[in-house]
């Protein structure tokens, strides 16, 4: 397991190397970087014999134990199945992507982010700690955001990236809440502990709330209706990304999570009521919407939505048969859909077209791509002897034995008819029939471009040809991890002449009809179909987003008017309103004022401060104002010195000096000193100033009054030299005892400096570019 962990860390190294490798090696960079996921694959396979014997290797490193967060990796059959897909397909995606984006200056970025995604996704599949899983889960969302917005100069790509991030991120928050609920109920965040305490959990009413929250997270991630709309929009990403993240792996995370938690939450009454119907609706909606598309990638995206719905439906049914079906469907779909996406990308790369109506007859120009497309399409259509056939037979079998079997089965068959037609549209139509105009010069691209989809498609073919072995070695451990008891997995192509086979035949016949009638093309051109789309949940998203942004703009206008006086007003008022009542409440009255005999020089200094402060308000020249403010500052510094705070005094001196320097620099550029505010305004200002002063005075009194019985001062005094080897307590607090605070503060300082720089220079740049704003 340690070797496996090391191979995961290798992906970080690869991600760091990728920008450089991408620049130096071009299309060959993918071949080199594929080494890293292949190492993960090798380590995974080395652990496989143990998995078959029921071992689940665990690796646990402490992280933040107080939060219940530990780096606990646990490899079971389910996680291993997903990890196998992620690493295997990932290696091919790197090879394909490097060829696809060859010559693009952003190739290195693509490779780097893809490798990071791979790491995050592998993390999701092997995390045993729920919080760790959540961290990886969010990392996949972030890398997905970066990859969807890869073409960040196009507004649509940016909008799609935002949409995906907001939808999946919002679901992620719900997921976290669900995890925390379960964690509080069991006292642990280890999923294996949850599994052990599942009977106790099932009895608690809060568990149902947790289930709802977690399902919400899974639904957004796996694009279930009504959150499905982000997935088709995510097709703004480069095609290898769509193939990898948005069909083969990332969108499976939600399904995976449901499978992972099925042992914990499957016993709840809500599970078999809610999930099958969520999946059923998504399956139908996805398949129906796919029909109206003409863009290769969007066709595939909607069909992916449908397939994800099927997976949720199967897990929701929660029977050994349906779990088995889901575990076969998962790799089958990843293989054929990944391959089809890559085929679509290959066609796009060769002829720069994705509209299926303008494609045809490319089989001679792109023979290998055509072969890959054909095999993958047959798998998607569920033809023997491909893996897709096995998964579809199992799907039908599960639906036939489900509660409300008729409705379920009719929906399933209908969706599959449409999906089969889509498979033919994407995998066959671009290559067969008459060569469409403008495609004469097409030719096969770099090796990686056709090899990757071909390999994926062939793996699907081989897996279908040896169903018994696949069932024993691949599917059985995964099913056992979900069902917790050994389930007999005997896959075979021929089950005899039964109802699922009849349904399969029916599906093919109907799909042929749909294809022949060109129903998809007619729908795509029908205006009423497009109008229907406007009522979808995407519109709700738009409205919500608009409302949130509108509110943000409104409150920004209110709070941040751009006038300095208004800012000060808000800050002072809010601090007074928040701090003063709290301070007085905690004290239960006004703090007692203790006169501790003032020395004559104290009186003089305070006198200077008061007189100078008064004069500042009456001053009619800027230079005098600066000098008066300076004298206030220096007097305060001397007060610090007198009350034995030399560090504070020195800092104050230095800051005052720098302020003078600042004024020297800008004084000639400032406009003429004038009084613009009205009398009423000034009275108002006086009120604010007095309020602020009263608050600060009260706070100081409270602090000095309560400070008397505080342990802090004596603690720092005693431990400064012995623990931190320093006699200057102030400095020791700054750099050692409270060093973390200081680190935060200097970070804020650096950010503030960036802000000041942007304010000073940003305007200049904008003016130089032709003055958009002014």
């Amino acid at each position, binding site marked *: 397991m340690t070797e496996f962990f090391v191979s995961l860390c290798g992906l970080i190294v690869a991600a760091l190397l990728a920008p450089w490798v991408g620049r130096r090696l071009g299309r060959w960079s993918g071949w080199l970087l594929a080494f890293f996921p292949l190492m993960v694959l090798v380590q995974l396979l080395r652990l496989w014999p143990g998995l078959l014997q029921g071992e689940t290797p665990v690796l646990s490193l402490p992280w933040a134990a107080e939060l219940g967060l530990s780096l606990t990796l646990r490899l079971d059959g389910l996680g291993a199945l997903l990890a196998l897909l992620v690493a295997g397909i990932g290696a091919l995606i790197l090879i394909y992507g490097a060829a696809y984006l060859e010559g693009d200056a952003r190739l290195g970025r693509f490779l780097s982010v893809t490798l990071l995604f791979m790491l995050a996704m592998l993390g999701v599949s092997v995390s045993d700690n729920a919080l760790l899983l959540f961290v990886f889960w969010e990392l996949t969302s972030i890398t997905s955001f970066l990859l969807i917005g890869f073409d960040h100069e196009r507004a649509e790509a940016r909008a799609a990236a935002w949409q995906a991030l907001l939808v999946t991120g919002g679901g992620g928050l719900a997921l976290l809440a669900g995890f925390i609920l379960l964690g509080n109920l069991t006292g642990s965040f280890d999923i294996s502990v949850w599994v052990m305490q599942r009977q106790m959990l099932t009895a608690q009413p809060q568990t149902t709330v947790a289930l709802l929250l977690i399902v919400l997270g899974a639904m957004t991630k796996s694009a279930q209706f009504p959150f499905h709309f982000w997935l088709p929009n995510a097709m703004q990403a480069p095609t290898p990304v769509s193939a990898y993240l948005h069909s083969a792996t990332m969108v499976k995370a939600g399904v995976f999570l449901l499978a992972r938690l099925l042992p914990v939450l499957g016993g709840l009454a809500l599970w078999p009521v809610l999930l099958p119907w969520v999946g059923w609706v998504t399956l139908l909606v996805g398949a129906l919407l796919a029909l109206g598309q003409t863009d290769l990638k969007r066709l595939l995206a909607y069909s992916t939505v449908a397939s994800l719905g099927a997976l949720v439906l199967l897990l929701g049914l929660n029977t050994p048969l349906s779990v088995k079906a889901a575990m076969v469907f998962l790799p089958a779909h990843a293989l054929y859909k990944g391959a089809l996406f890559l085929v679509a990308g290959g066609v796009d790369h060769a002829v720069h077209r994705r509209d299926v109506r303008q494609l045809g007859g490319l089989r001679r120009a792109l023979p290998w791509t055509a072969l890959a497309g054909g095999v993958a399409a047959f798998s998607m259509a569920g033809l023997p002897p491909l893996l897709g056939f096995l998964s579809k037979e199992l799907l039908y079998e599960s639906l036939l034995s489900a509660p409300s079997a008729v409705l379920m089965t009719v929906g399933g068959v209908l969706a599959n008819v449409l999906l089969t037609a889509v498979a033919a549209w994407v995998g066959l139509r671009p290559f067969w029939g008459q060569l469409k105009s403008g495609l004469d010069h097409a030719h096969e691209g770099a090796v990686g471009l056709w090899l990757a989809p071909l390999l994926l498609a062939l793996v699907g073919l081989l897996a279908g040809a040896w169903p018994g072995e696949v069932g024993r070695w691949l599917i059985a451990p995964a099913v056992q991890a979900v069902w917790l008891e050994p389930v007999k997995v005997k896959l075979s192509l021929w089950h005899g002449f039964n109802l699922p086979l009849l349904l399969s035949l029916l599906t093919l016949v109907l799909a042929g009809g749909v294809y022949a009638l060109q129903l998809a093309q007619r729908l795509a051109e029908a205006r009423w179909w497009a109008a229907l789309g406007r009522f979808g949940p995407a519109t709700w998203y738009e409205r919500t987003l608009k409302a949130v942004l509108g509110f943000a703009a409104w409150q920004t206008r209110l709070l941040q008017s751009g006038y300095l006086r208004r800012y000060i007003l808000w800050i002072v008022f809010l601090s007074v309103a928040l701090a003063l009542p709290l301070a007085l409440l905690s004290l239960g009255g006004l703090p007692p004022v203790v006169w501790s005999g003032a020395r004559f020089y104290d009186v003089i200094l305070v006198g200077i401060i008061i007189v100078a402060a008064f004069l500042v308000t009456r001053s009619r020249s800027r230079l005098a104002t600066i000098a008066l403010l300076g004298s206030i500052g220096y007097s305060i510094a001397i007060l610090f010195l007198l009350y034995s705070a*030399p*560090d504070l005094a*020195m*800092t104050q001196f*230095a*800051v005052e*000096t*720098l302020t003078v*320097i*600042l004024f*020297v*620099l*800008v004084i*000639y*550029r400032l*406009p003429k000193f004038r009084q613009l505010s009205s009398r009423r305004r000034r009275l108002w200002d006086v009120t604010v100033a007095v309020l602020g002063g009263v608050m600060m005075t009260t706070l100081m009194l409270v602090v000095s009054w309560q400070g008397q019985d505080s342990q802090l001062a004596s603690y720092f005094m005693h431990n400064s030299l012995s623990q*931190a*080897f*320093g*006699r*200057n307590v*102030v*400095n*020791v607090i*700054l*750099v*050692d005892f409270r*060093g*973390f605070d*200081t*680190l935060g503060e*200097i*970070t804020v*300082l*650096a950010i*503030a*400096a960036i802000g*000041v*720089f942007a304010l*000073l*220079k940003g305007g*200049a740049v904008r003016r130089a570019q032709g003055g958009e704003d002014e």
Partner: protein
Amino acid sequence: MNKPRRVLQRSMMLPVATRYLMPLLLLFSVFLLLRGHNEVGGGFIGGLVAASALMLYAIAESPAALRALLPVAPRPLVGAGLLLALLSGLVAVASGKPFMTGLWIKTPLPVLGKLGTPLLFDVGVYFLVIGIVLWILLTLAED
């Protein structure tokens, strides 16, 4: 932007005085930085003093002259300072202790005194403060 209404008469006093003052002030700032753990001083104060010294030079000569004098531009200095402060905390992590545990070399060195990661942290603060002040003020001065 308003043009300066008067052209400043260049005075001899300031440049000549600065020539002697600036090195002294810079030396003083390093002194403040190093003694900070035991006496009055520290990275923040040291950084402010050093920045004042350098700004004095910018006023006496010109902002461009200061830029030419600086071996590192202010902006990378900010990043370097922040990174140094962060690294000083990570040293403890590398040796298996919690983040930002102070580690010390037990034997004191001449001039520098006792060396430890808190001093490294303070050095980071020192550079960050110099970088920020110079960055903002030079941007203002050159605008």
